[in-house]
Every structure is written in C-alpha cells, then in structure tokens.
C-alpha cells in the first residue's frame, strides 16, 4: 500500500497544496508548531477517518472553516485509487467518504487503505483510561476485520435502546417486564464483541511477547489481561432498574497491561513506556500482515530521545521493504534509521511544505 500524493483543505494549519511522497520513507522535519504532526494526522485521517490525537472532530477544522477534506492517491495491488474524506460541521454534521468519486460506507472505505500510527499520545493505551484501551482493542480488531465495525455498531445501538428503556422504567413510563424483549439481543450482540476482543487480545499478546524477546528488551514481564464484563441480566435487573442504565457489557470491559500484577504504567519509566507501546504497535502491524499479506502505511510521530533509538532502528529495519513509512522528529538525527535508505525529506513551515527533496 503506497500513498503517492495527498491534499488537505482546511485541515488544521495545512495549506491546500498537493504533496508527493516517496514509496519507501518520508522524513518530515521543521520547527515545533509548523504542522509536521498535522501532516501525519491528515494521512492517518485519510485512511481511518479518525485522528490519532483527538476524538473531537471539531479540532481538525482550520480556524473558522466549516468544511474540510483530505484526498490522496493510493496505490494497492497495482491499482491506483483516489480516496477522499470530507467533513462538515455546524448545524448539519456530515461525513462523506469517496473512492474514485463514488460514495462508500465506512466499513468498505476503511478496507481500501490501512494506516498505523505511533505517537506519544498513543501512550494512553497503557497510561490512559479503560475507554482508551477499549478503543485500542476495537481499532486493532477493525484493522484486520472491517466487519467488526458492524458488530460494534449493532451493540451500541442495542445498548442505547436498552438504556432508554431502563430510564423509562425508572421514571415509571414502562414496566420492568418490557426488558425481556431486549435482553436476548443485548446479550448476543455483547457476546460477539467480547469474543472478538478476547481472540484479538490473545493473538496480540503472543505477537508482542515474541517481538520483545527477539529484541532482548530488559522489560519482559508485561502481561495482557482482558476482563470482559459479563453478567446474568436477570440477577442484575433490580440494580439496573435502580441505576436506570445498563450495568454490564462490553462498554465496561477492561484491558490491563500489568507487570507482576501491578499496572505497567506505575512501574515503567517514560522511555520504557514509549518503547513498550512501540512494540505493541509492531505487534499490531504483524497481525495485519499475517492476515493480509501486505504492509500497511506506518506513521511515527515525534520520535524523541526518550525512545530507545537502537530498538527503533532494528524494528524499522525488520519491516518488509514494501512498508511505506512517514516519520517526524524535532531533531533530524533521531530519524537516522530512515535517512540511510531511499527517502524523501519534506520541510514544513507554517503549514506549507517549503522544500521536498528525494534521496534515492
């Protein structure tokens, strides 16, 4: 999968110009605040329709703009496609996904182009809230099984219906027995989400452990614990009616990273945490490659001295040659691993690419 060009309109501070990329590595340099990360974010957004930094779509719009669009040409299996994501904010919020000018539903769209991102914000996977980790699981599963998005949205739909009913019961608008009609569908939707999460966690943990061992990293005892929240809805009914909300289900699942029973985030240093998250990212990449026999795009944001650069170099060298990489750093020296091979170097100033040079 190769992204050959990208154009962003009203996307953060990026100027609406077409950028050409190198099929191997792309090094994006510039002072802080010039838009390096924004460019990576636009690439990630084109593939996933999401940001890797924020869950608030509103923050992606250039100040004062009510529409934004990112478009790019993607080469895959010898076929070039034009992909485009457009958002509209304000009174009507809309998202338009297009491939070659044709509208696509989300699961179809995201299948066409896969991007993995590593960024400092991604430390939330280990350090953040349970919700961050559930999202991490869900995105990972969706990356290798787009149909999972349908299962997830079915679950959220039945959860919302059930919560609305619990509220109605709590306020006297409906009888307790009316839950009977919803519990079966709720349970089966919850099970399909939890089965997928459990299977993915096992696969990921296994790939992760192998990568950590292969690099002889000194932190080796990280365990993945997935605790699905399942309950006998009959036994829970009284409590749920009192709470007026569903008290069990995937929205309360836990994924914990522990070391000898303690949360990894409490035990590890900042640098160790970053390296662990990097390993995690490479484990995700491996699961993707195993499934699709092709390499997704890989964006690395803000490589800094805290990260074990020797390990980063080895990890990058271990990627299949066909992997297209995009990386930013405030210090170009940190991107040494990429500068050694064929690459393009883009300098960003104030949202505009001022120099773009190819080193073959």
């Amino acid at each position: 999968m190769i992204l050959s060009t990208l154009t962003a309109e009203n996307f953060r501070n990026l100027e609406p110009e077409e950028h050409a990329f190198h099929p191997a590595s792309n090094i994006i340099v510039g002072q802080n605040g010039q838009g390096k990360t924004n460019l990576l974010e636009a690439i990630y957004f084109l593939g996933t329709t999401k940001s890797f930094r924020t869950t608030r779509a509103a923050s992606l719009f250039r100040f004062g703009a009510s529409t934004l669009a990112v478009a790019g040409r993607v080469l895959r299996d010898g076929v070039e496609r034009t992909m485009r994501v457009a958002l509209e904010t304000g009174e009507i919020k809309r998202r338009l996904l297009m491939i070659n000018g044709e509208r696509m539903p989300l699961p179809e769209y995201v299948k066409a182009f896969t991007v993995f991102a590593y960024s400092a914000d991604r430390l939330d996977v280990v350090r953040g809230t349970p919700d961050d980790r559930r999202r991490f699981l869900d995105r990972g599963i969706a990356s290798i099984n787009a149909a999972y998005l349908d299962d997830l949205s079915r679950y959220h739909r039945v959860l919302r219906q059930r919560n609305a009913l619990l509220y109605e019961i709590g306020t006297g608008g409906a009888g307790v027995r009316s839950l009977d009609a919803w519990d079966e569908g709720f349970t089966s939707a919850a099970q399909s989400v939890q089965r997928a999460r459990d299977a993915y966690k096992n696969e990921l943990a296994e790939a992760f452990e192998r990568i950590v061992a292969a690099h002889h990293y000194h932190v080796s005892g990280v365990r993945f614990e997935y605790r699905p929240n399942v309950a006998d809805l009959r036994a829970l009914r009284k409590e749920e009616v009192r709470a007026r909300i569903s008290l069990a289900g995937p929205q309360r699942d836990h994924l914990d990273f522990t070391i000898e029973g303690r949360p990894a985030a409490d035990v590890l240093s900042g640098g160790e945490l970053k390296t662990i998250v990097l390993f995690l990212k490479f484990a995700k990449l491996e699961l993707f490659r195993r499934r699709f026999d092709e390499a997704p795009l890989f964006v690395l944001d803000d490589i800094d001295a805290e990260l074990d650069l020797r390990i980063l170099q080895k990890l990058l060298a271990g990627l299949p040659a066909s992997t297209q990489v995009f990386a930013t750093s405030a210090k170009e020296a940190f991107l040494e691993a990429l500068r050694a091979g064929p690459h393009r170097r883009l300098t960003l100033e104030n949202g505009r690419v001022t120099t773009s040079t190819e080193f073959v």
Partner: protein
Amino acid sequence: MGEAEALAHAILEVKERIIRCTTCNNMTDVDPCAICSDPRRDPSVICVVEEAFNIPTIEQTRDFKGMYHVLLGALSPLKGIGPQDIDVAGLVKRLSPGGVHEVIVATNPNVEGEATASYIAQQIHPLGIRITRLAFGLPVGGDLEYADQVTMSKALEGRREI
C-alpha cells in the same frame, strides 16, 4: 388546470379512500383487504411484518399463501415506541379463537426488529402456537468476505444439509 390538478386530485383521493384493514392493518380501499378476503389463501398461517409496505416484497415471491399481520412499527424505546404502540394485541386477538397453527415473524433483522420478534414470541408462547422467524443469511450473489460476524453466525445457525 390539467395535469397538476389531476395529480392533486389523485393524491387527495388516495388519502381519502385508503384505509387500514380492520383485520390485518394492511393498506386497502376495501375492508377487509383483498388478502384477508381471498378464499384461496391459507388462514392457518400468519406472517407478521412491521409495515404494510413489507407485504408486496413478500408477495412478489409468490411463495407465501398465508395471511399477514401488520404491526405498524417496531419496538424502539429511543423513539418512545413501546408494546402498546404496536399492534401485537390485535395479533393475539386473531389467534385466540384457534385455527392458526403457525406465526412467521418477519420483522427487520436489526436490533429493533429482533426485540419486537422476542416480544411477540413471549406473548404467543403461552398459546402453544408454532412461531418461526425468517432465516437470516448471506445475501445471494454476495461474497463471504463481506459478511459481518452476526450475519455469518446466523447463516451458520440456519445451515442445512445438501
């Protein structure tokens, strides 16, 4: 004058003349509707649908010879639609004299349709009448690759010998 007025009249006439069948809730200009009053149809099987416009889809197959019952909606607490807002009571009333031996539930395969099917099943079970649900499966002409997990597991559940 002319076409526009004729069209306006036609719309008005439809609005005035179309009524709900008092037996099955289908849209009709005579009561009972053409299906309910057709002596060639089998009154021992009732197919339950959410809306009247679901009936032509099933009729097109020409495979179903029984009767219909239109619920006029599906359960949806988010829209404030509860059991009293859909016509399950009318269905139960049609079943109580006996003579019906199968109810086919053909509500939509989404979460609202599923909950509605569960509700109907719970109401009918005490009557000892056979209840069936339309099979879910893979779209004909579709690719296995594009099936979501629920569709796939429903299709597996409903597999048959060949």
